[in-house]
Structure formats: structure tokens, C-alpha cells
């Protein structure tokens, strides 16, 4: 059995080159003053690195120990033998602790050509381009909005901070819920995240409070965005409601090649949480995410998951239905183009009576891309009256692409209604013919059909995301963007 990450590294392909001139200078949403401003970026993973991360952040002893134990778990867990091809990740050649600006391209010119052209095509104004380049969500024109949202949240007692700050300012609340849904040794990459996590969101919604506006990272303080090892924790007290949105449809270039985030959500009785993600990482990124929610009596959890970018994404949003009449829903859309593998899916575990769930997965492969749906429906003994439905549809746009569906349905109860359906197809010739005969070009017609295909999911997205997603579909169909 493998016990050391060093055993796992293959002949390292340099997938994470060191930037020539790393700028350690100031930036807008920086760290707290207490942290030393002199820091040497180091490559590689070790207990020493973990110790340094924790000291830099001035963390309490228990968190430091948690990180060290997590690193031990990471070392002794074998790599998963299923899913995507993780053979080229070189754990020793990665920076595990860098601040935001050091990781992103230093300027517009440094961005890869295809990304620059996407931004141009998407009609993104100059100011926005800067934002995307920096990777930090500075809302130049949204200062007013920003402040209004923050005032409103504070008045209602909602806590919305980055995870590091939350640990400092709300330690008891934090510790009570931390790693209760996803323990450090849950899987290899959760263990990695648990050891080197930095950034992410912490949200606590008091009992009965309904947060109407979708919360996004830029509304929190210290919005170091799109971190490599983000750790998000959301707690919705009984009867509360909140919607969190992360990510961006525009392609984000990251020189980091390994992203391993963890999102834990606790939905207490009769509360409702929706978590929407759209990721479009550049094609050098391995995006391995563990996302799981625990839903209690009468609670509802919804995951909306959009996977557009990255070289390989392995992500299976999960809901544990632990109280009667809890409901879990996962809507997932995945696009895979040349050189991409989206290995995504969903997991629903029914561990209480009268619980219900629904999974809808839509995937599209083109140019030799590969989408895989990997899902699990598990009905435990004692979970009577479960009703669940899974629907996975895949579109293959050409002869080179690939789609897989790996559903597991494991039922240990009698009083259960469980259905699963999947289809794989290409765009119908008659559909295309009809649209073209109405004057649309082939790519316009294809784009329209694809948009219709993903409509059940895109209609659940916040307006601006849906619009951007539709525009992106058009671009992709034109083949103008990779």
C-alpha cells in the first residue's frame, strides 16, 4: 500500500512552470496586517510547509494539528484507480501556498491567445478584463452595490467572511461544524485540501433568515478569489435560506495545475441552500473537488454544477439525506472539448424515511472530448418511502468524442421508488435540417439545439450566468474558441 506521495509521482512533466518574475508586491484585497509580508514561495509538500502555512495565518493549535494529521492521511491514501487519468500530477512540483497575484498572469499580454480572444469575443469591457486577469473580483463599478449588500447582511446577523477570517473571529461556531460533513480522511484530495487549505467562504445564516440575493465571493471581506485549495463551509440554521454562487463562465487562466477544493454544507431542519458553480478553468488544470451537504429534517439542498473548463475535473456533488422528508437535488451540465475529460456526477444517500431526490445531468462532448457521468444512489436500510429519479443525457457532437455513464443504484429497502434513465445521442439530422432551412448557419443551429438541450439547468442559473453560458455555447459551436 502506498504510504508516501513521493511514491506516486511519475516522471514529472513540467506542468507547473515557475513564473520568471514573481511579483510579491501589494494588491487590493490582501491579507491581514499581522501576517509577515516577506514570504518565500516554496515548491513541494511536507509537514514543514504545512507548519509554515498555519503559522503564517496565526491559527489556533487545533487547526494546526488538524492540518498535520490531514497530511498524514494524504500520504497514506492511494490514488483513486477510477475516474480520470491522474498520473501526470507532480505533487512535488506545486506551490502549495501562494497569494492571489502570484498565481495569475501578471498582465493582459501574458494570457494565452485563446483566452484573450474569448474575452474579446464575449465583449468584455476593459475594466472587466483587468478583473479577470488579476483573479481578484474587484468590482470597480459595483462599490455601491457591494456596500449595500454588506449592510443588509450585517443587520440580519448573517456571517459572510473568508474562511481564514471566520476561523479567527468565530472560532467556536467554526470548530463545531468544521470537517463534520467531510472528514479529513474522506478521500485523498479532501485530505490534501485539509492540510493546505486557504481561502474560501464561510457563511452562517441565523434561524429563519431568508437571504434573497445570491451571495458571491466578491461580497465578502477578503475576497481572494479562485484559490487553489479553497475550503468553503456553509451553515444554514433551521428555517433559513441562502443561495451561494461561485465561479465564472469566462475562461480563467490559472498557472496552478492542481485545484483541490472542499465545500461542506450543513442544512439544518427546514432550511434551504442552493450552491451554484460554473467553472471554466484553463486546459492545464486538474480540478478535483469534494462537495457534500448534510440535509436534516424537511431540509432542501440543491447543487447546480457547471463544468466547462479544466483538463480533468473529478467532482461529484453529494447530499446526505439524514432527516425525514429531506430533499436533495443535483443539476449538472458538462462540456468537454479537445483534450478535456469531465468526470462529474452526483451522489445521493438516503438515510432517513420519506426522503426524496432528483439528479439531472446533461453533457456535451466534441473534438475528442470525454464526459463521464458517475453517480451513486444509495438507499440505506430504514429509509422507507424514498422516491428518487435520475436522468442523464449526453450529446456527442462528432465521431471523435466520447461519453460514459456509470450509475450505481444500491438499494437496501423495500418501500422505494427509484428510477434512472439515460440517453446518448447526436444532434438529429432532421432537427438541423429544419433550422438551417430557416436560414441559420450550421453552427448557429447547433448552438440553438445545444442551448435547448441544457435548458433544464441553465434556467436555474442566475440571469447573468445563463446569458454568459448561452453566449459561450455559441462561441464554442463556431469552433472559434477552444
Amino acid at each position, binding site marked *: *500500500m502506498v504510504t508516501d506521495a513521493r511514491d506516486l509521482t511519475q516522471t514529472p512533466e513540467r506542468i507547473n512552470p515557475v513564473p520568471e518574475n514573481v511579483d510579491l508586491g501589494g494588491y487590493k484585497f490582501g491579507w491581514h496586517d499581522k501576517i509577515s509580508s516577506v514570504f518565500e514561495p516554496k515548491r513541494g509538500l511536507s509537514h514543514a510547509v504545512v507548519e509554515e502555512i498555519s503559522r503564517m495565518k496565526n491559527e489556533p493549535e487545533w487547526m494546526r494539528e488538524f492540518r498535520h494529521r490531514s497530511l498524514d492521511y494524504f500520504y497514506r491514501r492511494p490514488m483513486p484507480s477510477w475516474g480520470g487519468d491522474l498520473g501526470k500530477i507532480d505533487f512535488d512540483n506545486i506551490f502549495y501556498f501562494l497569494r492571489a497575484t502570484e498565481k495569475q498572469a501578471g498582465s493582459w499580454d501574458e494570457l494565452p491567445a485563446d483566452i484573450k480572444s474569448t474575452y474579446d469575443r464575449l465583449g468584455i469591457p476593459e475594466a472587466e478584463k483587468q478583473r479577470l486577469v488579476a483573479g481578484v473580483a474587484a468590482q470597480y463599478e459595483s462599490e455601491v452595490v457591494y456596500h449595500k449588500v454588506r449592510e443588509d447582511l450585517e443587520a440580519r446577523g448573517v456571517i459572510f467572511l473568508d474562511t481564514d477570517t471566520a476561523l479567527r473571529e468565530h472560532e467556536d461556531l467554526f470548530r463545531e461544524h468544521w470537517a463534520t460533513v467531510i472528514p479529513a480522511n*474522506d478521500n485523498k484530495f479532501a485530505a490534501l485540501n485539509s492540510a493546505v487549505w486557504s481561502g474560501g467562504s464561510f457563511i452562517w445564516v441565523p434561524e429563519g433568515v431568508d437571504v434573497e440575493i445570491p451571495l458571491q465571493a466578491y461580497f465578502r471581506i477578503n475576497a481572494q478569489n479562485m484559490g487553489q485549495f479553497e475550503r468553503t463551509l456553509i451553515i444554514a440554521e433551521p428555517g433559513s435560506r441562502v443561495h451561494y454562487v461561485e465561479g465564472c463562465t469566462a475562461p480563467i487562466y490559472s498557472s496552478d495545475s492542481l485545484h483541490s477544493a472542499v465545500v461542506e454544507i450543513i442544512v439544518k431542519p427546514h432550511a434551504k441552500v442552493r450552491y451554484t458553480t460554473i467553472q471554466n478553468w484553463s486546459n492545464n488544470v486538474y480540478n478535483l473537488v469534494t462537495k457534500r451537504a448534510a440535509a436534516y429534517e424537511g431540509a432542501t439542498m440543491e447543487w447546480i454544477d457547471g463544468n466547462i473548463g479544466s483538463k480533468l475535473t473529478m467532482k461529484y456533488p453529494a447530499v446526505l439525506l439524514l432527516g425525514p422528508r429531506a430533499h436533495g437535488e443535483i443539476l449538472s451540465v458538462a462540456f468537454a472539448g479537445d483534450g478535456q475529460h469531465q468526470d462529474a456526477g452526483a451522489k445521493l444517500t438516503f*438515510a432517513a424515511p420519506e426522503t426524496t431526490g432528483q439528479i439531472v445531468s446533461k453533457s456535451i462532448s466534441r473534438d475528442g472530448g470525454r464526459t463521464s457521468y458517475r453517480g451513486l444512489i444509495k438507499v440505506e436500510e430504514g429509509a422507507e418511502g424514498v422516491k428518487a429519479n435520475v436522468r442523464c443525457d449526453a450529446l456527442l457532437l462528432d465521431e471523435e468524442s466520447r461519453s460514459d455513464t456509470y450509475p450505481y443504484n444500491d438499494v437496501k429497502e423495500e418501500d422505494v421508488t427509484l428510477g434512472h434513465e439515460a440517453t446518448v445521442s447526436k444532434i438529429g439530422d432532421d432537427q438541423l435540417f429544419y433550422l438551417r432551412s430557416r436560414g441559420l448557419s450550421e453552427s448557429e443551429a447547433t448552438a440553438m439545439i445545444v442551448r435547448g438541450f441544457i435548458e433544464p439547468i441553465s434556467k436555474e442559473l442566475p440571469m447573468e450566468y445563463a446569458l454568459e453560458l448561452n453566449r459561450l455555447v455559441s462561441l464554442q459551436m463556431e469552433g472559434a474558441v477552444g
Partner: protein
Amino acid sequence: MPFVRLASLPDLEVNQGHRVELSDDGEVAVALVCTGDAVYAVEDRCSHEDYPLSEGWVEDHQLECALHGSRFDLTTGHPDVPPALKPVQVFPVQVEGEDVLVDLPDDWAKLAAEGSGPI
């Protein structure tokens, strides 16, 4: 419920699970764990999925299942975190000299005897 000799002390490494199979298809097996101060015996099968606990890590008198990480208390057999929800069986152990004797349920003891000793 008789005490059956399942191993000798030198066979056991500290803080490492040692598997003793009682049936030839591996379905009935015991995991022995020596923690330095005591020897424990639990059924060698995670209550979550059919995986031998003897392959896992031992720490703080807990045996962790290598597959999904649930940790079982060696004295009570109870798991601390999901995905395992049910406890595993634990058996009293007596060490006499170098012999590790485990108090097995009758049918398990019978298997051990039938197979002319554990495999």
C-alpha cells in the same frame, strides 16, 4: 464462547492490523491489533462496505478503514464518522505468554477448529 488461539505475539506489529481468516473464502475473519499496551480483536470487515479493517491505519486505539476512512473504536467497535454507521463486533482477548487467545462466538470457533487452525 471458547478462547481460541489465533496468533502468537511476535506475529503482531505494533499499531498495524493483522488479519486471521477463519473460513477459506475469507468471509469470516478477525483483525488483531496490538497497540503497544494491549491487544484487541475485531471482526475484520468494515460495517459500511465489505473491506478488511486490518488494512487500515491504527491510531489512538482506533482502527481506520482504508477505503473511506471511518474509524472504529477498538474497545467498543463503534465508528466515529460516516460513511460507516453500524458498529463491528469486538472480541475479548487474553494473552498467555506468547499466545494470543480470542474469545470467539461458537460458530466462528467451530470454523477455526474445522480448518485445523486458522489459515
